[in-house]
């Protein structure tokens, strides 16, 4: 893991002066067609999965979540936008995704951000609890509040 981090940092060493380094493996803003956009999506996914060990190391997520779960989360968020066909829109979404990934890898976020946004989602950890497994929506809403 040390090596990987070092290798990544070496790529960006010309920008080491800045407190938050910017990845240049970014997405140039113009995809000509849908195929190129797809290629960029997969490239992004690969980059994200390759930085998962770094993330787990930075934020000490070893006991909280498994790398496979994080991969699942990332792929689920990409799949959320699977219906998009406009290459420009895909480019923008990728830009934002890259921004987010860069922030996380640069330690610009904190542990509770990662856990709240990518580990414990609306259904991620709650579902695995044994308390609410067989309960209906009515009961779940009832326990939360009076207004549903």
């Amino acid at each position, binding site marked *: 893991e040390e090596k990987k981090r070092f290798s990544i940092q070496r790529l960006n060493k010309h920008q080491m002066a800045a407190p938050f380094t910017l990845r240049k493996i970014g997405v140039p803003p113009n995809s000509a067609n849908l195929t190129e956009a797809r290629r960029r999506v997969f490239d992004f996914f690969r980059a994200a999965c390759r930085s998962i060990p770094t993330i787990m190391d930075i934020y000490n997520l070893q006991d909280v979540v498994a790398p496979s779960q994080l991969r699942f989360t990332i792929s689920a968020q990409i799949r959320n936008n699977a219906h998009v066909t406009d290459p420009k829109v895909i480019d923008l979404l990728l830009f934002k995704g890259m921004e987010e990934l860069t922030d996380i890898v640069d330690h610009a976020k904190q542990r509770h951000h990662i856990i709240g946004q990518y580990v414990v989602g609306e259904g991620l950890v709650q579902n695995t609890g044994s*308390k609410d497994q067989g*309960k*209906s*929506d*009515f*009961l779940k809403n*009832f*326990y939360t509040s*009076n207004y549903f």
Partner: protein
Amino acid sequence: MGVGILASRAIRPASRLVRSQPSNLFLRTIVSKPELQSPEAAAVSQPEPPKNQILPPRNPVGGARVHFTNAEDAIEVFVDGYAVKVPKGFTVLQACEVAGVDIPRFCYHSRLSIAGNCRMCLVEVEKSPKPVASCAMPALPGMKIKTDTPIAKKAREGVMEFLLMNHPLDCPICDQGGECDLQDQSMAFGSDRGRFTEMKRSVVDKNLGPLVKTVMTRCIQCTRCVRFASEVAGVQDLGMLGRGSGEEIGTYVEKLMTSELSGNVIDICPVGALTSKPFAFKARNWELKGTETIDVSDAVGSNIRVDSRGPEVMRIIPRLNEDINEEWISDKTRFSYDGLKRQRLSDPMIRDSDGRFKAVSWRDALAVVGDIIHQVKPDEIVGIAGQLSDAESMMVLKDFVNRMGSDNVWCEGTAVGVDADLRYSYLMNSSISGLENADVFLLVGTQPRVEAAMVNARICKTVRASNAKVAYIGPPADFNYDCKHLGTGPDTLKEIAEGRHPFCSALKNAKNPAIIVGAGLFNRTDKDAILAAVESIAQANNVVRPDWNGLNYLLLYAAQAAALDLGLIQQSAKALESAKFVYLMGADDVDVDKIPKDAFVVYQGHHGDKAVYRANVILPASAFTEKEGTYENTEGFTQQTVPAVPTVGDARDDWKIVRALSEVSGVNLPYNSIEGVRSRIKSVAPNLVHTDEREPAAFGPSLKPECKETMSTTPFKPVVENFYMTNAITRASKIMAQCSAVLLKK
């Protein structure tokens, strides 16, 4: 001051003015025209409106409907050139209202007698030497009424100027600011400046009790409160003392207003002379959000508007409903809102082994109850609905208890043996507004003044309007209209049933006799005999006919009618004594001593009242201002409450708690939304789903089997000891405590 500088400039040589006219544009001469000197001159100079002008159609004020008793008796009058047909006895003001013109007034009120002393309603009538008081002048055929002429406007300005002469400059500290008739009418009809430079008079304040705050300096002597107290409330407490500018409204002797309708003078008073003492200095009317809902303190279901600011109910105001409460509400309805802030249950609680309550989460509380309910035999489960429960929660409770295998679910107030098969036997069959047509009343075991103040107001109105005769059988009580006390117990009833009593002749000669039976009689052991006697009286005197049904039953609680419609009746007298699991849904009047010591009691309610102390588990519910619930009043009129404020703490709606409990207990109820509950109610009692509609009873007394029992001789007892403290909310209210300490007649 204003006259000085400009006038002196005008008196300067005219040449200078003419020369410098273009540059000194701020200089102008004071010019007066003949039209500005007097209203008559202005009227003369106004151009005549072209004849045969097509005027736009007009609607009556407030969307009112005009009721013609006799179609031939319609008169045609002209209001501002607009021809309008009015019934014969209408006044000029009422004719203008039909024509869509709202005439300003202070002393006139549509439900009180005419006084004609404020003179604000002056309008010009052709061929009349002076403007006429439109509230008192009857409309004659062919009258031409003009309301927007200079004479009428000048009259209004003059009256307003006079009223404001002695009126103190209290607007910043007056509670009526923002909803004050004087403020609104002076902005609309008054002149922009006054000419009064002397000292204003002041009047000493009167003490009318803990409910009505009086600042008599602000009084404009319209006498609305005097007329209300003597006509609608039936008490002759208030009067006008003195003459001229020394007139004072008061009680003359040091007397408090003890009537149960005394809060309505607050609405009636057009200025801030009589205001609500509990609401004094609490809020301004523009920061309050009004929610139109229903009152549940008695079985009448008066329409109210709950004014709230954020999560707090600030005050309660009546809403117009001609059929039920007209424009009035009782003091209990109006002032018990501060009980909603005290003693509220906000978290589920379980009683620990050391006897103290511990707050737990909903999961744990429901899990505990769900466990225990399965350890008990089905016959030992008892559910009791409270007097403030809405129809939805009672339906879900009955379904749940029935599916657990038990038939013991009833509403408090219904004793053993009350059957709900025939609706006529527990409803007010002539409807509350129908009581106005009765000419003889027989009240059996009921005191409408404390049980249902609006019904009493209606009886008072009938007595006053058509001299109806009222007689009552029961404990001696105070009535605010003339009535005869026939007796105290079933003996008198037997005499009337057999025709031996002198009152029978009055009943026989009556065109529309009405018998009102109190629901307190349902709790007696000889109830069947008494009700059979009442029905025999009804039959002998032609009380129940196709066109008039005068056999009425006055219920005590808001939940009773809906409970009886849904079938929550008590079928075995031993159910409570042999119960092992008791579910009290807001039931505080249950005799807690009757519950066995080893029974597991669950209390679901919004106030920590009497029954909470015996409970093992507390589930917090929402009060009537916080939930949407269906209530049926004593005449069978279904209405819905609307949530005005959010629920307190972790409380939930009643039906949701029972539904969640049923799911935790493994019982699958087939609905999980309020629409589902309502469609279930529709299959049981469809009249509860048709809101704002009255469903009369379908069958009459002819279907009832004969009764063989005999009446006992115990006299009728009063049901309501303390008018101000009858349910959980009123018992928690500080204002009600003050009233019962000070205003109850000893």
